[in-house]
């Protein structure tokens, strides 16, 4: 597949650059000037530029973290271009015939309609198909409810007070190396604001965001749920997405005010690289929520893509009685490496957290759960339950668990359960004796293993996630 990607890449050059495209894509390298230019391209206000520059200076003082259980060649941050304009129509594949047939087969298996296939594969289509009307209806409904859902670059202009107040309030600029980098150079992302007492009338999906282009590499998402509001947010999609940028460093911040709830679901299926792990996406993500009194956050993730996944969606349970949940399925195969988990920081009284993590390793992959449960001195009566299960397929993969537990309050209760199992020969034999082929058997066993997490996903997503696992597991046995 990487060869085909390479081909796709080289085709672009064969066709020759359209000159205005070239001028809008920055040469590789990162310095203050690059950041000024990014900000200028986006016509950002001065405060936004200053914020970026401060983040850049934070970043310069930081070291790339190396504690994760992943191995990859050192990233040359000066070899990356930090701004590329949307591709021109002439530059894109002109029809699905020009798209990698492997990708199309996967779309077909997932039952993705043709026009969506075109969108996902980045085919040059005039944006006139159904989605325009869909998006319009969608926007009208949200407006009626007073919900803001727009690209964050638009929010910087239209809602500067909200952005200024909350951007970096959960994940500070200097939080970690990749968050600092994102803060300096973020390209775009989503901004969501749910007013007090409003229950968002529909699930918000990045899929329907108007500007699909060019948000991939350094995505920035900010969701603010005011007092007593509810929202369910869906990120990513099950279809493998093409992206030519190898490094992804996203930041997601959730602000959950008193009695509010955010459910954040992710399906991540970026290109994992070829069988030698070459060419896959490096995915370094910082996701964090702050929960005020009685607030609740639920992170659900299905991670099947990327060569490297480094991701710990976390909850700061600041308010009394606030609740944090983390449900995760991470599947690695081939040469994939995942180091993922969560942090539950209990600060308030009677705060509760639940962690259910399911790691599946196949092929030569490595799958690590890393989680922190911290009970603060004032977290009277706080509780955590962690269940961490690993499933191994074959004998060349690895599963690792690194739970960190800190408790400064004697009344807090922390429970941790962990299991490691293999897809057993007996299970496989039973399935096959009942007429299932080995691939179907494995996917069924794995789906059963993930059931507790899948049931937390929005209905439609859950069905897709099941299918996605099945496709991801193809060829991983024997």
């Amino acid at each position: 597949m990487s060869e085909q990607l390479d081909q796709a890449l080289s085709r672009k050059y064969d066709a020759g650059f359209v000159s205005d495209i070239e001028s809008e894509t920055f040469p590789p390298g990162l310095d203050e000037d690059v950041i000024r230019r990014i900000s200028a391209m986006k016509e950002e206000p001065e405060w936004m530029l200053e914020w970026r520059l401060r983040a850049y200076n934070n970043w310069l003082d930081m070291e790339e973290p190396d504690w994760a259980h992943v191995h990859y060649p050192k990233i040359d941050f000066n070899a990356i271009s930090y701004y590329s304009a949307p591709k021109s129509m002439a530059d894109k594949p002109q029809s699905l015939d020009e798209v990698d047939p492997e990708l199309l087969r996967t779309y077909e298996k997932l039952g993705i309609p043709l026009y969506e296939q075109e969108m996902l594969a980045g085919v040059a289509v005039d944006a006139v198909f159904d989605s325009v009307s869909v998006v319009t209806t969608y926007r009208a409904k949200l407006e009626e409810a007073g919900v803001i859902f727009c690209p964050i670059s638009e929010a910087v202009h239209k809602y500067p007070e909200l952005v200024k107040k909350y951007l970096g309030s959960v994940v500070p600029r200097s939080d970690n190396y990749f968050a600092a980098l994102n803060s300096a150079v973020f390209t775009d992302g989503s901004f969501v604001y749910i007013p007090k007492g409003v229950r968002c009338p529909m699930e918000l999906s990045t899929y329907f965001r108007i500007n699909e282009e060019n948000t991939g590499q350094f995505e920035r998402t900010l969701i603010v749920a005011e007092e007593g509001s509810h929202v369910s947010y869906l990120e990513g999609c099950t279809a493998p997405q093409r992206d030519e940028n190898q490094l992804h460093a996203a930041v997601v911040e959730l602000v959950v005010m008193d009695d509010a709830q955010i459910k954040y679901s992710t399906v991540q299926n970026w290109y994992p690289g070829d069988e030698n792990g070459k060419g896959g996406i490096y995915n370094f993500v910082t996701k964090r929520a702050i929960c005020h009194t009685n607030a609740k956050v639920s992170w659900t993730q299905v991670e099947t893509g990327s060569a490297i996944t480094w991701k710990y969606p976390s909850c700061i349970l600041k308010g009394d009685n606030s609740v944090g949940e983390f449900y995760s399925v991470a599947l690695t195969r081939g040469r994939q490496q995942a180091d993922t988990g969560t942090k539950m920081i209990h600060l308030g009284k009677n705060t509760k957290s639940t962690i259910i993590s399911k790691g599946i390793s196949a092929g030569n992959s490595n799958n690590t759960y890393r989680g922190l449960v911290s009970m603060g001195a004032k977290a009277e009566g706080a509780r955590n339950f962690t269940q961490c299960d690993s499933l191994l397929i074959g004998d060349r993969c690895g599963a690792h668990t690194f739970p960190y537990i800190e408790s400064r309050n004697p009344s807090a209760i922390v429970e941790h359960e962990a299991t490691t199992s293999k897809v057993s020969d007996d299970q496989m034999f039973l399935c096959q004796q009942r007429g299932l082929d080995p691939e179907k058997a494995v996917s069924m066993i794995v789906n059963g293993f993930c059931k507790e997490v899948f049931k937390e996903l929005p209905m439609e997503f859950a069905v897709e996630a099941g299918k996605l696992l099945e496709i991801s597991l193809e060829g991983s046995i024997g």
Partner: protein
Amino acid sequence: MLKINNLHASVEQKEILKGLNLDIKPGEVHAIMGPNGAGKSTLGFILSGREGYEVSEGQVEFNGEDLLDMAIEERARKGLFLAFQYPVEIPGVSNMAFMKESVNAIREQRGETPLTATEFLKKAKEACKQVQLSLDFLKRGVNEGFSGGEKKRNEIMQMILLEPSLCILDESDSGLDIDALQVVANGVNSQRDGKRSFIIITHYQRLLDYIKPDYVHILANGKVVKSGDASLATDVEKEGYAFLGQDNAEETNA
């Protein structure tokens, strides 16, 4: 329908079957009895294709085809069913989802259209009723937390649903109380239609009080050492397998 000719097979280089012959016609019920370690379960596993068993000699013909040449799932789809002695759990996979997948894989082989959820549910409910399993068992994970008796009844439920042409029951009576034993036997008897054949592997004659076999074979030391009608099972019950000791000795001498 099933012809086993001079079958030799080993596990981990230890020969377990040493020239087994068996001929089963449509509609017949054959009981295989014998002492522990005689190779009874091995026979079931070899016929169903389990990995780890090496066939060194002999042929098995199933409905005119070379059975040993087929993959496990192919044998199943062509009508061979094994009721397990120790059914394994598959956590999180509902019995219903599992069986629907299974029934439809087999229907596909037969060139039939897949059952819809409603059609399947109707059949599954009937099958559960026949083995006196409550409908809750359809929703539960495959064998997950089932008692020994429930697991065995669940196997028979699956057999009823899949409508195989050859059913191999591997000690489906072990660990059952008398009531459960009757339920299992009734389930089996309900499937005797003059065409479907059965191989009933058992250590005790007890089950054969309820499922009347056409033939009884005594398996010892990897071979059928004695065949007869149902009365043979009664003899074994009275005299035990002790008499085999002599026969075995003779054979090894020969």
